[in-house]
Structures are given as C-alpha cells and as structure tokens.
C-alpha cells in the first residue's frame, strides 16, 4: 500500500497562514513545533511535516477504514536532512516510512508500510496544464493534487 502527498509551495504561501495564532498547535506535536521553530526555512519544514502526515494518513485511512482529522495523532520523525529526506510517521500502533524531495516550487512525499519498498516506488509529477489527462486509467497506487501539480505513484 502506497501513500503520497504533493504541496505546491507557491500556493501554500497564499492559501495557508501557518503563523496564525494556535495554528501550529492544532496540527503539530511539541517535538514537531520545535523542528519548525529551529528550522533554517520554517515554511519548508511546515509543509514537509504536513506532507509526511498526509501521505501516511492516506495509507492509514485505507488500511483501517478510519476517516478523521487528527493530524496531531500522526507523529513525525525526520531521520536525515541532506538531499533526500527520510522519515517515519507513527499513528496508533502503525509505523509508516516516508521519503521526501523538496524543490523550489513544490515538495513531494511518498509513504510505505515497509522501508525497503520506498526505493521501488515510481513517481510521476505533472505540472499544469499537462495534468489534464485520464490518469485513473494508469491505475496509480495513490494520487495527490495541489495547486499546479499532480503527483502519481505506482
């Protein structure tokens, strides 16, 4: 089972004001908030952690059938921050493994229940207007859409 999540960083800037009072406290644990406040680029860290949670939630939701909005119950740990970013997300008794790539205009995270499977995931990222096609017929394992971007994983 696969999960993924793409964030259009230009859209995120205008769509969400994470500096709003109480915003971070609603979605991030104390440890995650510390990562954000101590980050060189706090904006990237907010959306990196958010995409880790979203991609893990997409597996969790399909696996357990639970549908909720409890971002704080998904605990992120980042294991490396050079080049490719590896992490884990824990929710209840489940652990999901993530790998993220940060670019200037977007960031993308993939998630898997097994860390060894991450390297076998193939990704396809399309930017508007090239994202308007019948992607469902390609039978992706997970789909993420945000702003100008469409990300598919197989």
């Amino acid at each position, binding site marked *: 089972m696969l999960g993924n999540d793409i964030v259009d960083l230009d859209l*995120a800037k205008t*769509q*969400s*004001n*994470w500096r*709003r*009072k*109480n*915003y971070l406290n*609603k*979605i991030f644990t104390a440890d995650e908030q510390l990562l954000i406040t101590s980050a060189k680029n706090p904006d990237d860290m907010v959306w990196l952690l*958010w995409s880790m949670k*979203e991609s893990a939630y997409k597996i969790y939701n399909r696996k357990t059938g639970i*549908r*909720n*909005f*409890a*971002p*704080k*119950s998904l605990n992120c740990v980042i294991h490396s921050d050079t080049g490719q970013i590896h992490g884990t997300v824990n929710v209840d008794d489940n652990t999901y493994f993530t790998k993220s790539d940060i670019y200037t205009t977007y960031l993308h995270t993939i998630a898997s229940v097994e860390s060894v499977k991450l390297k076998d995931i193939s990704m396809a990222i399309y930017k508007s207007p090239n994202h308007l096609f019948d992607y469902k017929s390609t039978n992706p394992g997970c789909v993420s859409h*945000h702003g100008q971007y469409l990300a598919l994983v197989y």
Partner: protein
Amino acid sequence: MNKEEIIEALKTIVEPYSEEVSALAHIDENTDFINDLKINSANLVDIVLDIEEKFNIEIDNDSMAKMLTVKATTEIIVQKLEAHAG
C-alpha cells in the same frame, strides 16, 4: 443559537476556503468539507480556528478529529455551547 443559525454561520466561515459554488449554495447537514466542498486539509485547521473565534469555544483534538462534515461540526458546536452555558 439553534441548529439552522449555526449552519448559516458555518456557511459564512467555510465560504472563503471553497471554490465549489454549487456545493456552497446547497450546503446542508450532509455536506462533507473535503468531498463536497473540496477544502484543502490545511485549511480545515483555519475553519476550526474560525469556529473557536466566532462561537467563543475551545475545540479539543478529539472533537476536531470528527469535524469533516457540517453535521458533525454542528453537533460539536452545540455541545460546546451547552457546556459553556452550564
């Protein structure tokens, strides 16, 4: 504040976060914030914060977890307002 008034206030709160004109016009108890109004999940947090400000209530994490539909959200607001009054 009765249920209809709460739904009306909710409509005003969610409007800036949705571009689904038709779904917004027909908002009712069964409206789902993500499936029907296509609200970005990061903006659900804004909606929760807007609700806290508008109704002067505090929404705990367990309550927030259920707030994916107008029905569940209205029930939580009613509960919190009652607890506040009591």
